[in-house]
């Protein structure tokens, strides 16, 4: 029996290493990267079906049994996120071919791209907290390189702050691990969960550590009030890199909160999960305020990334079946639709030559496909049925009402409406409206950009229509989250 868990990491790693040898052969690099991502996709599809039929998959690295060795665990939550990652990187790669420029491609762009993917997939699959730190560093180092790749003045300026923030949060991660190891004496997530669940007396220090991890992962996942670095950093690099970051990086932070707050830190949910819920609500509010206030299309989009973080975390904080299911649906939907929107906005800026709403208008006249795709993407983002955002939001609301968080549910609906307003403003002013440019004055073409965007939009529509098909998988994932014993037993006892 093939172990798909380890191949999920090895395929992008090997692809990245091979491409380090051939920085000058651009066409060959493109071929390798697209082949590698397709193999990765097939591998992850097989992984998901294997988890569905045979239960949680694991890989003991070096043959050391847990809790002594590092273990990779593929449960359904990881599996679904890994599958979505593999789906999302293909259109971003295709978009890179025609937009990133040969100069950057010769400077190890694809290698670093695949190292980043390796880090993200590793963070999704690992079953050990310190190993998660290592994979965090793998994708962070790659993201440092990508964010400064090409070293324009703006990129250099923003990346210095981005690197500083992330080095500090990594140091905090190490400190958090140290505290946890001192208190519990293990770092294997299943073992941690087992030991914390068997505590007989309350341990307030654990609550402190839980909040510390919330800060660490919150810095990565951009929750309130730790999202301040995100808007400037994600708009500095080229579109394809921005899309990769917007689709994947914040989701790793969310996944880490999801995992730790469902398996490890369940000793005092009345406190920790309330804090999480309140922070989620504040994240929605402040994210949506930023989205409405800005007149720069890239900034509007970036603040929408923050709103989505709030939605998912709210689902996590409810600790109900519907809330978890909603969070999983929404995070999958958000990875796809945020990548699509980043690429769409990138194409809009390329064509319009400006990112300020006031200076653009009437793009749809010469680019009807781009305009209508954008409208569909906006509807999907907001969750108009039958598009992909709908089912996630319905389940989130259901989860929220079950536990009686009515005011957060209300805030969520208001935030959704304002998200619609902020995005539809781009459509009305940027795409619709009076033409500012004639077809000859345009600053770039959409040649080669429309195909990856339509791939992502098609995926989003499929996710909306095929929600029923996906449901059993989401249900499997939720079962493990609701009953941590399943995860713990699968890792430690078999």
């Amino acid at each position, binding site marked *: 029996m093939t*172990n798909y868990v380890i191949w999920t990491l*090895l395929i992008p790693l090997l692809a990245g*290493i091979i491409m*380090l*040898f051939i920085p000058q052969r651009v066409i060959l690099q493109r071929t390798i990267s697209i082949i590698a991502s397709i193999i990765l996709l097939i591998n992850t599809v097989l992984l998901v079906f294997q988890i569905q039929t045979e239960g949680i998959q694991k890989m003991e*690295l*070096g043959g050391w049994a847990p809790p002594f060795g590092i273990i990779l665990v593929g449960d359904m939550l990881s599996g679904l996120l890994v599958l979505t990652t593999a789906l999302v990187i293909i259109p971003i790669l295709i978009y890179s071919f025609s937009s990133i420029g040969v100069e950057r491609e010769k400077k190890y762009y694809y290698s670093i791209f695949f190292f980043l993917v390796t880090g993200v997939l590793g963070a999704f699959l690992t079953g050990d907290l310190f190993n998660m730190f290592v994979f965090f560093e793998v994708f962070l180092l790659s993201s440092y390189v990508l964010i400064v790749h090409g070293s324009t003045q703006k990129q250099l300026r923003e990346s210095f702050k981005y690197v500083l923030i992330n080095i500090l949060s990594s140091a905090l991660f190490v400190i958090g691990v140290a505290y946890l190891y001192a208190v519990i004496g293990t770092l294997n997530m299943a073992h941690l969960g087992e030991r914390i669940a068997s505590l007989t007396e309350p341990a307030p220090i654990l609550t402190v550590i839980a909040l510390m991890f919330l800060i660490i992962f919150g810095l990565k996942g951009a929750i309130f009030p730790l999202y301040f670095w995100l808007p400037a950093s994600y708009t500095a690099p080229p579109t394809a890199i921005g899309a990769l970051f917007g689709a994947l990086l914040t989701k790793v932070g969310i996944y880490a909160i999801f995992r730790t707050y469902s398996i490890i830190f369940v000793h005092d949910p009345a406190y920790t999960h309330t804090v999480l819920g309140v922070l989620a609500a504040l994240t929605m509010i402040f994210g949506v305020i930023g989205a409405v206030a800005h007149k720069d299309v890239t900034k509007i989009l970036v603040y929408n990334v923050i709103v989505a973080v709030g939605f998912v975390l709210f689902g996590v904080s409810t600790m109900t079946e519907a809330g978890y299911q909603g969070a999983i649906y929404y995070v999958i939907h958000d990875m796809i639709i945020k990548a699509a929107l980043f690429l769409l906005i990138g194409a809009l800026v390329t064509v319009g030559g400006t990112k300020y709403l006031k200076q653009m208008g009437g793009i749809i006249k010469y680019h009807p496909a781009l305009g209508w795709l954008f409208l569909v993407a906006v509807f999907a983002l907001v969750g108009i049925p039958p598009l992909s955002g709908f089912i996630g939001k319905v389940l989130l609301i259901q989860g929220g009402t079950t536990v009686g968080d009515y005011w957060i549910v209300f805030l969520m609906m208001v935030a959704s409406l304002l998200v619609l307003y902020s995005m539809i403003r781009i459509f009305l002013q940027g795409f619709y409206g009076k033409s500012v440019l004639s077809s000859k004055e345009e600053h770039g073409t959409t040649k080669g950009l429309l195909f990856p965007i339509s791939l992502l939009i098609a995926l989003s529509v499929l996710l909306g229509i095929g929600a029923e098909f996906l449901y059993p998988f989401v249900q499997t994932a939720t079962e493990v989250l609701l009953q941590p014993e399943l995860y713990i037993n699968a890792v430690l006892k078999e």
Partner: protein
Amino acid sequence: MKLNDIVIQTTTKFVLFIILAFSIFIFFNGHHHPGGGFIGGLMTSAAITLLLLAFDFETVKRILPIDFKILTASGMLIATLTGMGGLVFGGPFLSHTFGYVHLPFFGEVELATALLFDLGVYFVVVGSALTIIEMIGGDQ
């Protein structure tokens, strides 16, 4: 400004080989005792940095015609492939084995596949450390 660097150049010619020999000793020492690929690699790159300090870039490039980026990449490839060796033989990723071999001159020697992995680490460390030094020092 032209400094008189006869002292450092002469010293380097002696010291360099001592450092290199010691770094290789540290590298092989790593299986059961303190040492290993990382620290051995750092020591080797320190030796080459000393060479860079004493002489100039062109000279060092002539002595060591190696592309350090390729060295880093091959190190990563060696380490990953060693890890995958475990998969080929049906074990988990990164699993290692060892055996005793009788070599002429050395006698009975323990050889472990972990050494191959460490060789990869060594290459990565030497390659990346020298790439960084080349990048900062190279454009002055």
